């Protein structure tokens, strides 16, 4: 399950509807395929793992340099931003094949759908813009200038505000989605990468300063700065990038890049509760549907770490393609 707050209501709706059926039907089918998708930047493919056995059941060839992935509303289609071919590939989850492509600007990296899945917001790291793409027409309908190397994108629950990080400007842009312009900027740590969105808080991973900046979404100010330092590491090795959170918003999980750990943070107290060892340069992170298992993609050890959420132990690692970027679970 990809932890996007705007999906929560949909997910609950689907969950409630399927609850009655699930006793009679295969629960896995009701919850989705259970597949774990991993995009591999250098081998230009998506590794598809069985969600129970963690065996790779298929490798889907994509356009070059697949990175961020998102599902459509009913999770029948998987969208993959392919940075070296300037497209978003569309994969049919039933057949596990690329069935369509959406052209983008140069080097798409991270993207998000709006609330009704009619628009895609995508950052183009080589072009210093965030683009708005009409999904049905497959057209770039608007382009928003940002600081250099925009990366993380996130849309507010009401769809009115788009948050974009600029890695070079060290800031988070607040974009009014109706006007299509930047209306405010918040300076955070060095090289801000990705977002978590909890109630009124926007959590931003700061890769170079080894921090997470927490922004008050009402007042547009940084209220907390979390510093990470797993035992035995130097601050310079700690490069937070990926971030995920539990649906009850109690726990936030941050991947620490070259420090080869993920951090578990108590979202209420902001206390760092645990560091769990994973593979090399951990970036991508996602939870399965019942939040019993955490998946972490390790870009420099070409594998996926699987963590038991109850014990917070790394229980397994599975080799995938070259330079795994994003992991996404279909639950």
């Amino acid at each position: 399950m990809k932890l996007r707050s705007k999906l929560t209501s949909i997910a609950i709706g689907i969950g409630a509807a399927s609850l009655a059926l699930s006793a009679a039907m295969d629960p896995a089918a009701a919850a989705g395929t259970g597949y774990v998708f991993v995009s591999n930047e250098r081998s230009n493919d998506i590794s598809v793992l069985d969600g129970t056995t963690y065996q790779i059941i298929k490798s889907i060839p994509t356009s070059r340099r697949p990175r961020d992935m998102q599902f459509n509303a009913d999770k029948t289609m998987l969208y993959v931003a392919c940075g070296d071919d300037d497209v978003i590939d569309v994969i049919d989850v039933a057949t596990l094949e690329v069935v369509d492509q959406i052209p983008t600007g140069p080097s798409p990296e991270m993207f998000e759908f709006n609330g009704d899945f009619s628009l895609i917001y995508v950052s183009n790291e080589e072009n210093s813009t965030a683009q708005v793409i009409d999904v049905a027409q497959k057209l770039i309908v608007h382009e928003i200038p940002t600081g250099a190397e925009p990366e993380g994108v996130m849309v507010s629950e009401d769809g009115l505000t788009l948050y974009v990080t600029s890695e070079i400007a060290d800031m988070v842009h607040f974009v009014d989605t109706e006007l299509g312009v930047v209306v405010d900027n918040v300076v955070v740590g060095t090289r801000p990468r990705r977002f978590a969105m909890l109630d009124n808080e926007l959590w931003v991973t700061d890769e170079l300063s080894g921090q997470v900046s927490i922004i008050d979404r009402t007042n547009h100010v940084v209220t907390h700065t979390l510093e990470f330092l797993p035992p035995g590491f130097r601050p310079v090795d700690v490069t937070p990038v990926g971030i995920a959170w539990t649906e009850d918003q109690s726990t936030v999980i941050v991947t620490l890049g070259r420090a080869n750990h993920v951090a578990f943070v108590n979202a209420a107290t902001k206390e760092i509760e645990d560091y769990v060892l994973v593979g090399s340069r951990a970036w991508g992170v996602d939870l399965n549907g019942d939040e019993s298992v955490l998946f972490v993609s390790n870009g420099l050890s070409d594998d996926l770490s699987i963590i038991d959420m109850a014990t917070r132990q790394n229980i397994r690692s599975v080799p995938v393609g070259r330079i795994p970027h994003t992991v996404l679970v279909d639950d």
Partner: protein
Amino acid sequence: MGRTLRLLALVAGSLLLAPGLALSQPAPATPGAAPAAPAAPARPAPPPAQSVPIGYIELLGDLRYELMGSYANIDFRDIGRPFEGAEVAIAEAQQTGRFMNLNFTMEKFEGTTVEEMVAQIDTWIAADTHFVLVDLPADMLVELADAVAGKPVSLFNVSAQDDSLRAENCRANVFHTMPSYAMYEDALAQYLSTKNWRDILVLQGPLPADELISQAFQRSAQKFGLRISEVEPFVITNDPRYRDQTNVALLTAGKRFDVVFVADAGRELARFVPYQTTQPNLVVGSAGLTPLNWHWTWESDAAAQLQHRYEELALPRQMNDVSFAAWSAVRAITTASIRTRSGGFDEIQDYLTNPDNDFDSVKGNPQSFRPWDNQMRTPILLATANSVIARAPFDEFLHEFNVLDTLGVDQPETACRMTR
């Protein structure tokens, strides 16, 4: 004699944005802007746009960049000057500055004498330019620094590697974003040590810079446990009486060593050393595996995007070590300005010299200035013609405070005595 070239902000704007977009960029943070979610409160009016001009000085006809050693006008060295690296960083800062009401500009002055450079700096100071990149040889740099000492201006050395500039000739008003020879040779010595290739033959050219490089390497060898069997001078001549100093096979025959280190700033002899040795030895230094501040093939740590921005501006050139030093200087100055939301000399200077602050290196570890000699700490790349083989410092060499201080002269050893 000197002339100035004003760089237009438009150049940078059109570099990075599609046509038309630069003009449609809205003003940031309008009070009472359309409601965002959660509803944005009424925000204070943005401060008026503040100009942050940066100066750039280079020596006309600088011999270091002449086609030294070229034959038939075919050049075999990358001799590109640093300037375009600074331009790329200005363009990046302009993009960020638009959101902060800071307007970064750069003005270049090309001169031949220290006097006219001092006059230009005085003009700049009067116009609120307090930070100046300088692409000068070491002796002129020191002369210029002394002439402007006490004035509200800091100089950024983007090309001179002389260790003396970080030691007895250090100056409080000079920052160094180009690594010293000591940093380069420490990086190489660390690598040779991790490989246990410890027996070294040094070939040293006739130029004063060759001697500085050779001496730096000899100090690095001692620091990291390498053994130098001999230091052999070489000359470039066809005179048969000097055959034992010109012929690589003769220079390397009858000696036991793992690696040849070549100290040849002009690179004319160095390029003929690989494959010409008597034994199958590796070659490092001015040929073979070379320590560099930057290499055009480096693509990790978000370097690919910087390479692309540089190539868009400077093709057919690709980014080299001095260009990266200039990029680093502007990046540090503009980051300090953005972080302090100020163009003031004191604010930026305080930010740069605060030991808690660091800057993006695009090479992994963040860069920062050493308080004891104003040298920027930075990782060093060890590269062949078309590949970065390794990045120093190496895990085998630890440091109490910052592993980057295993490269170059550390605080306890510094001979720099400066007072701000």
